[in-house]
């Protein structure tokens, strides 16, 4: 079932076109309010767009002209199942009955539906809660039952809106593994804020911002070579944009610190770029060194490439994360061991220099 | 049977009496409930093959119902107006109605008679809470007639829609006095005291009875009407306080 989709919802500034191949899983990423849930609700048939067209396999889901008139398939005839952002378990049915609802609605016998439901509850790891009512479940337990319910209805297109957000770390890997198996040969869209979900579950990602597609491509391309600040943030990478000044040199669009002259970034070019081309430069925080003088006294531990860029910045934030501290300075960040942070007496407001070798700064076409 | 003396002149009566069977439906004014229930029982006892179904409601309700096709054989009204409506509708023959009882007004007061009411004129005193029927209903029309006749101007605290409501206000002690029919005073027993007054003769209420033209059992209907207007009927009605037909 490949999907062709295009729809506009003026009231939410939503205008998205996308096609998905049979069996492909696409992760939908984007900041809060970007239109991810809107995208899914339109596909599921719960929100009627102002105009647009969607075809799943050979079934026309909707085809609406400018006036909003046209064909419109009701939700239950779409073969599209959706797990909404809140679990929305039917309050009058037990966990098991909730999961059995989908199969039964598609004509499966009661007994068979219940046995399928039992199997799905097993797979999401809450089979012991089968007879409980939704009000007697914790937040995460309810979310798992909702995942099972969406999967049990065996849809042709599966829509998942943040399915793992409420799961605890001990449960998430198992459910994620299960989802990967289930999604392997299934056409699906999954909204997530977790890069791990995108890597594990999705073949491609689409990044929405303010109701538009701003990036689209195979997961690894988009997240390893981000083109938008959002994708870079999600992948925890530093992203600087600019114009190619010379081979191996990119002139950054904005100085990193206000009041500075335009910065020249020395980078490793992976695309064929010539002077004047727009380019993105991507740097892992762990490849950035921090020093309190502009010299190279904080020698990199990697291969001693002498060609490096030094960025003058002011620390805005320190984030301890386990065995490293993330030192943030506006949009760029460096990871430093706690010991070094203490030695250098780093704190918000302190002026430091971030150093990065050309080998660790990857430049590609924007 | 008690009707034998009068009925000697009408030979078919005794033969038809034995032939009466099936059922008849009698639509009777609500104020006839006690008497007609008793009369129907006696009539049924006389005619074992016959059952009498009784429907009681306000006379005007009954008129509407019969006009709309209610299955009535006999209509007994509490006033001549309502009977005339059915005659106009041709549901009752113009000459069919027979007057079978009369009723006169009395003053009803609570047993203790707190305001010391003795005459109609006492009802016009300030501070006496009097209830009467509204002029639109028969007992109200009668009340207006006696007021005119006596030259008394009563300012009632309420003009009720039916005698029952007037009586209710008096028995509950809510009103100091009310104008109701003699039969109502008798039916209420100890709950009220009745005070007769001479002007009541100016407004005698007449009860007509008649068969309905498209009734299912005209023979039995006529027999029942004869029974009501006959000696037994008169005895029962008189016991309840009704006067003889004029």
């Amino acid at each position, binding site marked *: 079932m490949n999907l062709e989709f295009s729809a506009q919802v003026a009231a939410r500034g939503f205008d998205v076109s996308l096609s998905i191949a049979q069996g492909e899983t696409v992760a939908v990423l984007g900041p809060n309010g970007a239109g991810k849930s809107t995208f899914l609700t339109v596909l599921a048939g719960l929100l009627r767009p102002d105009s647009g067209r969607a075809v799943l396999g050979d079934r026309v889901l909707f085809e609406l002209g400018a006036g909003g008139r046209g064909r419109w398939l009701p939700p239950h005839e779409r073969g599209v199942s959706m797990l909404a952002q809140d679990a929305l378990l039917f309050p009058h049915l037990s966990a098991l009955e909730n999961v059995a609802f989908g199969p039964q*609605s598609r004509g499966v016998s009661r007994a068979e539906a219940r046995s399928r439901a039992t199997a799905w509850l097993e797979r999401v790891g809450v089979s012991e809660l089968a007879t409980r009512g939704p*009000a007697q479940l914790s937040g995460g337990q309810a979310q798992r039952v909702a995942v099972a319910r969406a999967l049990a209805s065996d849809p042709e297109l599966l829509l998942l809106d943040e399915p793992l957000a409420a799961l605890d770390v001990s449960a998430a890997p198992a459910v994620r593994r299960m989802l990967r198996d289930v999604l392997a040969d299934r056409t699906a869209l999954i909204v997530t804020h977790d890069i791990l979900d995108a890597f594990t579950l999705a073949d491609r990602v689409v990044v929405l911002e303010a109701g538009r597609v701003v990036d689209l491509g195979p997961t690894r391309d988009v997240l390893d070579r981000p083109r938008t600040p959002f994708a870079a943030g999600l992948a925890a990478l530093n992203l600087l944009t600019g114009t190619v000044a010379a081979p191996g040199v990119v002139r950054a669009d904005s100085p990193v610190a206000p009041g500075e002259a335009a910065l020249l970034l020395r980078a490793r070019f992976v695309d064929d770029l010539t002077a004047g081309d727009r380019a993105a430069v991507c740097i892992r925080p762990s490849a950035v060194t921090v020093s309190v003088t502009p010299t190279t006294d904080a020698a990199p531990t990697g291969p001693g490439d002498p060609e490096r860029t030094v960025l003058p910045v002011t620390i805005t934030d320190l984030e301890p994360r386990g065995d490293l501290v993330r030192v943030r300075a506006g949009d760029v960040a460096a990871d430093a061991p706690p010991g070094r942070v203490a030695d250098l007496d780093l704190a918000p407001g302190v002026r430091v220099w971030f150093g990065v070798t050309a080998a660790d700064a990857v430049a590609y076409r924007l | 049977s008690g009707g034998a003396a009068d009925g000697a002149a009408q030979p078919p009566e005794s033969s038809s009496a034995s032939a009466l069977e099936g059922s008849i439906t009698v639509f009777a004014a609500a104020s006839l409930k006690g008497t007609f229930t008793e009369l129907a029982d006696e009539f049924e006892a006389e005619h074992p093959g016959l059952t009498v179904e009784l429907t009681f409601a306000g006379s005007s309700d009954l008129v509407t119902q019969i006009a709309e096709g209610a299955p009535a054989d006999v209509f007994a009204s509490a006033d001549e107006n309502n009977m005339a409506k059915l005659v106009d509708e041709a549901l009752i023959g113009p000459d069919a109605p027979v007057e079978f009882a009369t009723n006169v007004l009395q003053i009803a007061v609570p047993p203790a008679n707190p305001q010391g009411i003795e005459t109609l004129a006492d009802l016009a005193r300030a501070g006496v809470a009097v209830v009467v029927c509204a002029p639109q209903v028969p007992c109200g029309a009668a009340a207006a007639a006696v007021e005119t006749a006596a030259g008394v101007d009563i300012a009632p605290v309420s003009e009720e829609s039916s005698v029952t409501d007037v009586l209710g206000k008096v028995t509950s002690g809510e009103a100091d006095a009310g104008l109701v029919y003699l039969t109502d005073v008798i039916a209420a027993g100890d709950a009220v005291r009745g005070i007769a007054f001479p002007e009541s003769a100016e407004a005698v209420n007449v009860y007509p009875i008649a068969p309905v033209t498209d009734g299912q059992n005209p023979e039995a209907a006529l027999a029942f009407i004869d029974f009501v207007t006959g000696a037994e009927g008169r005895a029962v009605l008189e016991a309840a306080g009704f006067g003889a037909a004029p």
Partner: protein
Amino acid sequence: MTRPIASGRRRDRAYAGVPGWVMGVAAVGAAFVLLPLVAMVTRVNWAEFVPLVTSESSLDALGLSLRTSLTATALCVLLGVPMAVVLARTEFWGQRILRSLVLLPLVLPPVVGGIALLYTFGRRGLLGQGFEALGVTIAFSTTAVVLAQTFVALPFLVLSLEGALRTVGTRYEAVGATLGARPTTVLRRITLPLVVPALLSGAVLSFARALGEFGATLAFAGSLQGVTRTLPLEIYLQRETDPDAAVALSLVLVVVAVVVVAAAHQAGRSGGARLRGSS
């Protein structure tokens, strides 16, 4: 989804949060409704009570009242549930006027309602002639009693259910539809179970109204013992001769109503228990 307040198992556990003055005013309101009942009870002549209540005509009337009221309630559910669903879930031209019109049997004095029914189903009525031609007479039969009761009781069911349907919203129905359930399945397995408490209380209201119905029945169905004379009509007739007897008979009506209402609430409580835990 965790709502601990509603699900406290022991009654003294849940935090209520009802201000004291609200309790005070509520007590005044309860007294206003209950005192007249008490006053009624004090006036009952208990010596006469048993023979009066067990007389043939009383028992006939009681039996007829129960039969017709239950039938009317069933009819109200049958017609009223679809009406409530349509009013709550669709929008169409004239809907607002239709909703007001459905209320009308409430505001019409019952006797006038009965006359309107006569004008419709009576011999000379709008539909009556058609029925007459088919040899069916509706007016003045037990059917007429049921129709009169249904007419006055239907708005109760429609309005309480419509309110509940709006309050519950369409979110669960939407989920059901995306799981592949057809509208009829959604209605049967999601919408209706979610509003079971409201459906029950609507049915109880309808039953109570049908049981107490008097004016429309009198006008439309007449008052024939065993056929159309329901308990309220019997009470009305008793009042002509003996108001205190009427009050005694009314007590029977009250007791029947309390029993039915309590039973329905009991059923609603056990049926809706799981649901209520989540509300």
